[in-house]
């Protein structure tokens, strides 16, 4: 099998256009390429697999219904899907729809939940291995406090004020952490961005 066919980063606007026309094979391909990442994202935000599965279904339905309104200039198709998934997951989180949380969730330190480097990932078949390695290493290069601030905003939908309150740190400190963290990620991930 051709490897690139299964990579989320390779989803192109043409595939989306075929999905918009009701091409079920195109949808099948889109799903295979993107669902592992979008599901991982939903699980990370909601911290509940059942909720994440339900959310994923809603997101794909919304995606194919809105796909004809997708504009290529607003970033890659995958970026569009990630944004859609994240924002729906955070809406759901805020609505408190998430049922009983896994007991493992708790301290803020657990927001630092990344792939342990070197550990083989059984879903690498689907995943964009190189991209994963790059993002993983970019994240691990960040000082823990910066990574934590970025993740609290991105995965838990907190504003800098809320993060500051949660961590009992001055707002300015949190803003700086996010700015520095994002800046470093921007530099580190430059090679993978078109």
């Amino acid at each position, binding site marked *: 099998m051709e490897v690139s066919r299964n990579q989320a980063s390779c989803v192109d606007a043409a595939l989306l256009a075929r999905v918009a026309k009701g091409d079920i094979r195109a949808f099948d391909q889109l799903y295979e390429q993107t669902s592992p990442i979008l599901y991982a994202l939903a699980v990370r935000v909601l911290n509940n697999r059942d909720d*994440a*599965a339900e959310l994923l279904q809603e997101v794909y339905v919304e995606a194919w219904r809105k796909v004809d309104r997708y504009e290529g200039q607003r970033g890659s198709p995958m970026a569009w899907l990630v944004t859609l998934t994240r924002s729906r997951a955070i809406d759901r989180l805020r609505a408190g729809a998430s049922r009983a949380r896994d007991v493992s969730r708790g301290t803020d330190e657990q927001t630092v*939940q990344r792939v342990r*480097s070197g*550990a083989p990932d059984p*879903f690498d078949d689907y995943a964009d291995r190189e991209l994963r390695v790059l993002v993983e290493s970019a994240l691990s290069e960040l000082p823990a406090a910066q990574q934590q601030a970025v993740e609290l905003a991105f995965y838990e939908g907190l504003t800098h004020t809320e993060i500051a309150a949660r961590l009992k740190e001055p707002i300015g400190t949190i803003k700086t952490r996010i700015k520095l963290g994002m800046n470093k990620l921007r530099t580190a991930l430059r090679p993978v961005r078109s």
Partner: protein
Amino acid sequence: MGHEQFEEAVALYAIEALEPQERAALESHVASGCQECRAALAEYQEVAALLPYGLRSQPVPHQVKSHLMQAFRRDFPDTESDREKAVKMSAAIEHTPRAPAFGGFFGLFARPALGLACVVLLIGMTVYVLSLRTDMQKVLAERQQLQTTLRGELSDLRAQIAQRDRETADLRKEVAQREEIMTFMRSPNMKVVALSGLQAKSAGGFLLFDPQNRKAFFYAFNMPSLPPGKTYQLWAIMDRPVSAGTFDTDAGRKGRMLVDSVPGDVKKFAVSMEPQGGMPQPTGHLYLVGQL
């Protein structure tokens, strides 16, 4: 408003960390035509969309896909169903000018338009037959898809059963361990040694130690994740450290260990990170330390 104040805001905007009024201010600044901020924003948003690649992949439950495939078919019923095609065909035949009775076979040649109509009809039939074949292939492909999904669900169930078995074994182990801990707790001589974190301040541990039978139960929490090839090693320290065993941490970053025989005259306990299998003497950083 100056452009400088927005440079920081752009990075925060991309991961939606701004407060509503700050967000609005940045949006209107970008809308007012600042190309620099617009470009930076696009770049940061791209970075944000890459963040999930740093997450551990999760197996997506198979039923998600089967539900979605069904919903997709409902949302996009075939734009031209077979019945509609049939209706169209008969309409096409209806509208084909009939050959006049007297024309006979030669009439076809006498009236080229009619000959053309036959050709068109023939092509139409061929296209129809071909499209039926495509539909058939599609149905077969979908059936195959369904089979794959079912097979996936079966293996999911098998995996779940295996998982339950593992969990049961783990629970049994835990119960046995708890019983052993209870025995410690009942011992009148039992001592508790608290260990505090050195590298990570939130890390800690305690050791339940019975000096009489020299047994100990050790428990550590909030331990930093172990890099591959590394393990934690507990040391009983007298004049020099003696290994009391190695332990790994679980997903909750906790470690537990039973020590069968703590060396006599021990004053201190410490935990260091060592290569897998442990070392005769500590070589790595100390993570926990506590005094008897």
